[in-house]
């Protein structure tokens, strides 16, 4: 079977594109050195990068189609392996594998990625690092593809760290400003904490399974279930720790809001649509492992619910347009994990896909707003923009409607499925369901607050100096495509009660070959089931809540800032807490960063300089003073010490030679 070597081209094309764009960057720099305003070949990077990702998308479509043509049980394409690390007792070989799950991820990464590449051409125009930007962006896509295609957990880790690197580089893209560089560093370090858990988890997997091959691990869980249930659970927990870092869950989400320091296309691609969902992908990929640890699944649910609620409530009090979207992303990722905790693997992937559509759309549209407003991000200084940028406005509306879960749009269906499956699981999941519903209300509220503040009411900026303008077509066309996807994405996986049975549960069935093992282990063949009437009722609750709170949010903010000011005056403590994201970031600064700094200084000054070096210098001084007392035996200089060594060596030689002569 492993002979589909063309699969290597899917990540290789963007990798190649990245290298070429990098060369273009340095050629441009060279051209600029001789003539400061020379243009150089940097502008070529855009079409090049788009072509690389576009071709990858085409190959992904081919892979998807090939899979569809195969028997359900045979839906796997695999390339020849690349023998990476031979650890003696274990070999790590990485091949590229396309199965139903990775085919979905492929299409999202390359499809949404392509649209964002197109958009970025206009957004980044005139930036001195234009070609460099596309080099990083292409490298990111290559690494993300490596992540979703790898057959081995360690190959996945290449992508995992690779996307983290690109995230670091792109958050800090405008490094001259200083704080983006700090934000990038924070993202990398916080992610490293998660990665440390990931790595230890992988050691446990090696101990249990003797391999890091993902399909072998998945297939082997059942057999080790009885003997190693504790280790399996621990491994699952540690891998979830890794997912917490990458997918911004409590307590490691603090890097994502800061990541907004990067250019907006980066926020859309990396910090909303793709990279941050890789934790969700990891859990679904290893669903048998997680299914074998129900306790861990419940823990994931609690973390996810808390994350969704805390981030959702924080989004309500943000003034920064991208800040709202960032906390919203954290909150929506919480939803995905909420789904995973109920074993709703397909529902989580469904929400991952629809979220990629509408959140990429919202970020790009927000980018268009920021672009048109001359880099202003504070919604309190916007207002009335619907007249100035109509196309951006309409597409933003589409994204907002989908995010807030207005009936029949993509976010409605995907969120509903996650909540319904939690409801169906019963027990503690009723509680998780309730938190999910409350968060849905918050989501609708903050989304429409954002729409109201940005596009309605009076212009709250100096209309004489700032002239908001609509973005060029290269930016608005991707917006429109994404708007269509955000509105209609629900068709991928309509609920089972939908009247058109043909399309119902499409994604669910498509993913079944991947999720079957996990389902069997988790439910032993008795999947929780909801009656049609309950399912209708849940849909109605979802629709009602979305409509009511969307209306409330929009109504309160369509005229201006009065409501925000009222909130701040009447509940200053609560407002401050929410604006500060429950003070978690500050807690890190006070309780982690500061102690580490103090400890480092203590070690460097107290332990190293005073104690250890003190002993060494003391010994040297002692030797010197002894030397002085016994007159000229040693004066502590190199020369005399050298003499000492020479003397010792001579003594040794003498002793030996004496023996030799005997």
């Amino acid at each position, binding site marked *: 079977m492993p002979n589909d070597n063309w699969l290597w081209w899917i990540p290789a094309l963007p990798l190649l594109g990245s290298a070429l764009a990098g060369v273009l960057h340095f050629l441009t720099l060279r051209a600029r050195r001789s003539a400061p305003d020379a243009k150089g070949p940097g502008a070529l990077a855009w079409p090049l990068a788009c072509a690389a990702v576009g071709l990858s998308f085409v190959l992904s479509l081919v892979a998807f189609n090939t899979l569809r043509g195969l028997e359900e049980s045979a839906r796997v394409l695999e390339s020849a392996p690349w023998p*990476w690390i*031979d650890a003696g007792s274990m070999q790590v070989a990485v091949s590229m594998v396309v199965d139903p799950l990775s085919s979905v991820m492929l299409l999202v990464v390359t499809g949404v990625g392509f649209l964002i590449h197109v958009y970025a051409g206009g957004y980044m125009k005139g930036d001195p690092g234009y070609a460099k930007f596309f080099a990083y962006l292409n490298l990111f896509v290559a690494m993300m593809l490596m992540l979703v295609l790898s057959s081995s957990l360690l190959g996945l880790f*290449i992508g995992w760290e690779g996307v983290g690197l690109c995230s670091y580089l792109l958050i800090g893209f405008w490094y001259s400003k200083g704080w983006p560089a700090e934000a990038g560093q924070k993202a*990398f370090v916080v992610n490293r904490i998660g990665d440390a858990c990931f790595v230890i988890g992988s050691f446990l997997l090696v101990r249990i399974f003797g391999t890091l091959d993902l399909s072998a691990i998945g297939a082997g869980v059942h057999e080790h279930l009885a003997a190693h249930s504790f280790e399996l659970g621990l491994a699952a927990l540690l891998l979830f720790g890794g997912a917490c870092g990458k997918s911004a869950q409590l307590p490691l989400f603090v890097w994502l809001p800061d990541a907004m320091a990067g250019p907006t296309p980066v926020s859309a691609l990396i910090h909303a649509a793709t990279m941050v969902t890789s934790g969700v992908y990891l859990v679904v990929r290893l669903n048998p492992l997680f299914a074998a640890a129900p306790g861990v699944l419940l823990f994931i649910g609690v973390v996810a619910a808390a994350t969704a609620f805390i981030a959702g409530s924080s989004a309500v009090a943000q003034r920064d347009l991208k800040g709202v979207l960032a906390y919203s992303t954290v909150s929506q990722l919480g939803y995905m994990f909420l789904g995973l905790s109920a074993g709703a693997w397909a529902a989580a992937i469904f929400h991952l896909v629809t979220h990629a559509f509408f959140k990429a759309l919202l970020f790009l549209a927000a980018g268009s707003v920021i672009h048109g407003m001359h880099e202003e991000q504070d919604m309190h200084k916007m207002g009335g923009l619907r007249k100035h940028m109509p196309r951006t406005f309409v597409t933003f509306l589409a994204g907002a409607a989908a995010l807030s879960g207005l009936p029949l749009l993509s976010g409605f269906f995907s969120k509903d499925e996650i909540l319904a499956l939690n409801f169906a699981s019963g027990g503690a999941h009723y509680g998780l369901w309730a938190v999910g519903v409350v968060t849905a209300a918050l989501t609708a509220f903050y989304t429409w607050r954002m729409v109201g503040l940005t596009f309605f009411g009076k212009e709250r900026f100096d209309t004489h100096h700032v002239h908001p303008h609509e973005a060029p077509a290269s930016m608005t066309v991707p917006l429109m495509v994404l708007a269509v996807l955000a509105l209609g994405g629900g068709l991928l996986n309509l609920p089972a009660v939908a009247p058109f049975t043909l399309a119902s549960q499409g994604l669910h069935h498509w993913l079944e070959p991947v999720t079957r093992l996990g389902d069997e282990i988790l439910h032993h063949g008795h999947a929780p089931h909801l009656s049609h009437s309950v399912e209708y009722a849940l849909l109605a609750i979802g629709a009602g809540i979305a409509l009511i709170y969307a209306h409330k949010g929009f109504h309160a903010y369509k005229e201006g800032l009065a409501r925000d000011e009222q909130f701040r005056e009447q509940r200053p403590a609560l407002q401050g807490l929410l604006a500060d994201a429950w003070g978690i970031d500050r807690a890190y600064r006070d309780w982690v960063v500061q102690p580490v700094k103090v400890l*480092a200084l203590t070690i*460097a000054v107290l332990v190293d300089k005073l104690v250890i070096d003190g002993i060494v210098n003391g010994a040297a001084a002692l030797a010197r003073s002894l030397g002085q007392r016994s007159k000229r035996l040693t004066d502590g200089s190199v020369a005399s010490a050298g003499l000492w060594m020479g003397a010792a060596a001579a003594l040794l030689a003498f002793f030996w030679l004496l023996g030799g002569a005997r």
Partner: protein
Amino acid sequence: MILTWLTFLPLVGALALLFTPAGSEKLQRLIALLTTSVVAGLGVVLFVGFDGASADMQQVTSHAWFSLPAKSGTIEVAYRLGVDGISILLVTLTTVLMPLVVLSAQKHIDKRVKEFLFWLLLMETGMLGVFLALDMVLFYVFWELSLIPLYFILGIWGGERRLYATMKFFLYTVAGSLLMMLGVIWLTWQTGEADVRALLNGVGDLDPSTQLWIFLSFAIGFAIKVPVMPFHTWLADAHTEAPTSGSVILAGVLLKMGTYGLLRFGVGMFPAAALEMAPLFMGLGALGIVYGAFLAMAQNDIKRLVACSSVSHLGFVVMGLFALTQAGLRGSVIQMVNHGLSTGLLFLLVGMIYERRHTRDFEQYGGIASVMPVFALFFVLSMLASVGLPGLNGFVGEYLILLGTFEASPLWACVGVAGVIFGAVYLLMCTRKLLFGAVTVEANKGLRDLDAREVGIMVPLVLLCLWIGVRPNQFLDKTAGSIDALVTRIDAARETRTGALELHLPQAPAAPAEAQR
């Protein structure tokens, strides 16, 4: 025969230098560059022709030299050279690094050039001899030969506090050397054998407590050289005060003499004793990782930060060695090379910026990436190799070491993994303070970017980092046979240890003797 050429060609070059007239610096640099390049070529030939599947010493040269008395009978000291899977990578690394070091000295060594190059070449002979010697006495001779040149390089061409640094380096080294000499005398006297191959096949006749004592005298001697925390305080001073080329050799090769010694003469000759002491050394390695990282975090001198990072990185190597597992040993051997490459690169880069600005203080930098983009590219690449990004060399070593340590002791492995987090902290902090932010210092505004020579020095090293990162097996395979044999010997020692009472430590294990012939 190739090994003799390899070892003594640098010495020939050094002697040739002595006959060049004063003032002919170009010629002198050319001689040094040519000599080291030819040696590098030989090193590569040796590497390519090396059979990694075999556990035997290869290319062995042996000539009787003189004999010494032993406890019973005599010790036949001989000129014996050979290479196996444990030394091959280090030999090749040394030969490849040297021409680059000579090139890097083009600018910053501008006084007493002839003398400098002489010491450099002499040192290469010493270092290669250390890795190749198969005779205990010969090994000790080469060991001292490789250290003496560094006293001079440090003391003559070093920075402001060079005398203090040299003194400290010297005291530590003498302490280490004396311990080692004690070990050599004791071992050869007791066994009547100076041939490393014979000793590797079994020192089992020695009673366990003697084994333990000899092991300790070797292990501590080498630990000082590595340096293992808490013997590390000479390193930061020596690195900081040494000229760039000295730092590169120190990090790239000299420190590896310590880890090589631990592996060859500690673990290799005394597996039973190593098993006894493994928890201690694994723990010291793991603590060293974290300790070095914290130390690095607190530095505001770039070069000192890189020096402290060495303590952390070598902690990995020591931890992996004393995990005494396949993965751990493989990881350690490859990590010795990795550290040489990535830390060597960082020292080169720090040296290049120092040549331009004559300061190592972070306060004086910031925003360098916008003035020197090529420099920034190489710096970030080296930093990433050092931080252990998958796809680059550092990851392979660190992952194998941690995996191997996890088998032996999950606790220390977890401490090591924590060190990986702190490693990211100080390296990224260093990168940010140096490269990012606005250019605030006036003197930084007109800095010229790297020239062709400087890029040329780094390209081979960066390519090697990538190569090891992507195809590590081509390097790991070279070590496979020797490490397999070593693991077999360790396992045999482990069995006799658990089978018998601790007082009756192993008699010469028979099985490993066969493996080593």
